[in-house]
């Protein structure tokens, strides 16, 4: 009887511990040199781990086993093993890496080097620098199209999108956009690219086949001074319904109809909202709020902010592991 009780208790414990392999979000804290790991079910911080100096851009390897971290002040890209949550390697990155993007081949990492006005392409397996491409002044945003054909870099001072052919590593076209472009996001079918211009206060929608701008949108947050409306991070739902645009110091995220480009709503989040990521089933959107030091969670169906979770100082990037 006693044994049976013990067995039941043990089974219950195992049963309880299995779902503990929770889905997690990784958040880089720029000022704390740490990474916060958030349980996306309970919306609680599970763990905070030390990483390199001034971590900003973060991204997952395509097989979801590693997290790449731009340690900007260490002039390197760190590789975090997700199983052990330990830094296992570093990659050459050029100076002051801030944003980067991984090619769908899971090998070529495109890194924007802000101080040197170049984009560095690194093979993550061999650690070879494959190319260094001259771009405009203060390169910032970096994106690779899901079909792998294009890498796009934004240069802040030149206010351009530089379209790099991923086979030749050469710029094929430059498109002038609003002042200080910061981020580019591709639609899942690689046909449309959205680019945010922070000072211009605009988002530019580019037809990727024609490499032409097809629409330009601006934002007006009720009760907020226009010069605080600074679009930065963009996230698109895969069904093509919504685009979410982080509007920086306006402390709001704009919800945009991705077909008509009409702003549907502005959602209040923490101070200086920066980057965004959707969870696996696209039910929740996570935002990093730099100045208030927290992460807001938005219910995508209801278009409501559910909760804001305290993390480290100046959270910058957020990535949700879809495999966990």
């Amino acid at each position, binding site marked *: 009887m006693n044994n049976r009780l013990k067995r039941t208790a043990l089974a219950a414990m195992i049963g309880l511990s299995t779902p503990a392999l929770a889905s997690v979000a990784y958040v880089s804290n720029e000022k704390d040199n740490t990474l916060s790991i958030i349980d996306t079910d309970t919306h609680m911080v599970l763990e905070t781990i030390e990483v390199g100096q001034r971590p900003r851009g973060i991204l997952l390897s395509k097989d979801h086993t590693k997290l790449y971290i731009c340690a900007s002040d260490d002039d390197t890209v760190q590789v975090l093993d997700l199983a052990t949550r330990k830094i296992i390697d570093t990659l050459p990155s050029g100076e002051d890496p801030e944003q980067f993007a991984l090619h769908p081949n899971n090998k070529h990492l495109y890194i924007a080097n802000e101080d040197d006005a170049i984009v560095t392409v690194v093979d993550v397996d061999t650690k070879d620098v494959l190319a260094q491409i001259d771009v405009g002044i203060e390169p910032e945003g970096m994106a690779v199209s899901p079909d792998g054909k294009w890498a796009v870099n934004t240069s802040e001072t030149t206010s351009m999108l530089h379209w790099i052919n991923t086979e030749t590593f050469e710029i094929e076209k430059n498109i002038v956009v609003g002042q200080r472009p910061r981020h580019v996001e591709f639609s899942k079918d690689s046909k449309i690219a959205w680019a945010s211009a922070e000072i211009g206060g605009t988002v530019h929608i580019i037809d990727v086949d024609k490499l032409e701008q097809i629409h330009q949108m601006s934002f007006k*947050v*009720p*009760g*907020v001074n226009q010069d605080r409306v600074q679009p930065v991070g963009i996230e698109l739902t895969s069904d093509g319904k919504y685009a979410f645009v982080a509007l920086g110091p*306006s*402390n709001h995220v704009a919800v945009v109809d991705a077909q008509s480009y009409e702003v549907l709503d502005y959602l*209040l*989040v*923490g*101070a200086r909202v920066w980057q965004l990521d959707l969870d696996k089933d696209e039910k929740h959107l996570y935002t990093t709020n730099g100045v*208030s030091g*927290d992460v*807001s*969670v938005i219910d995508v169906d209801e278009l*409501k*902010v*559910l*909760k*804001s979770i305290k993390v480290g100082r100046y959270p910058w990037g957020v990535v949700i592991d879809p495999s966990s």
Partner: protein
Amino acid sequence: MISPSHYWHGFVGVQTREWLRFWQQRTRFASALVRPLLWLVVFAAGFRAVLGISIIPPYDTYITYENYIAPGLCGMIILFNSMQGALSMVYDRELGSMRVLLTSPLPRPFLLVTKLLAMGGVSVAQVYLFLALALLVDVEPPNWGYLAVLPALILTSLMLGALGLLIATWVKQLENFAGVMNFVIFPMFFLSSALYPLWRMNEASPWLYWICQFNPFTHAVEAIRFSLYLSWNSQAFGITAGTTLVLALLATASFRPQRTRILGKDSA
């Protein structure tokens, strides 16, 4: 011997009369709704983004100013109604039905509490109407919050009704409502957490903060705020309930209908 059915008759009578009065004075009650709606739509619009700098319980995230002041405005509706209702009892005491009511053999505390509950019922109905209109400016508490807030609303209306009754015993004429506005309603409303969170008050002046802390209306507003967002605040509920009890005891003990007669003689 007074049987429970007598109590029931008395209770129903007072309630019915209050609702009849509500129906007859529809415009007065409609105008009582305009006041908080103006605060919500006009005043809060200018401050919309001011508050989004800190997360305070019971909220889980940043809220617009409209969301912050909505519970305070619910309190404001009850505050105005209670004061007006209590003062109209002065009038009733002289000429109207209260005089008839007080001649009934039912115990006076029962009659007064019944009267307070009746006034509270009307206030609560107005608060729900206000909350329904507040949906238009995106004040959207959780659905169960509308039910959970009911005890806090009743408790607040009892507390403020008892306070009104106590003041009414000292107010000689109905015309003194302006004085009550200036010396009771406005200080109670402005020196509370209705318009600004207390941490903001503390930053502005620790004195103001302490006055707000000692204002029972602050705790009533917090009880409304927490229960509307499905959180429990034992301090707010405890202080509101305690204050209600003390005020109700004082009010029933000091309510003297004969005072009117003496006043009548004085004024004659």
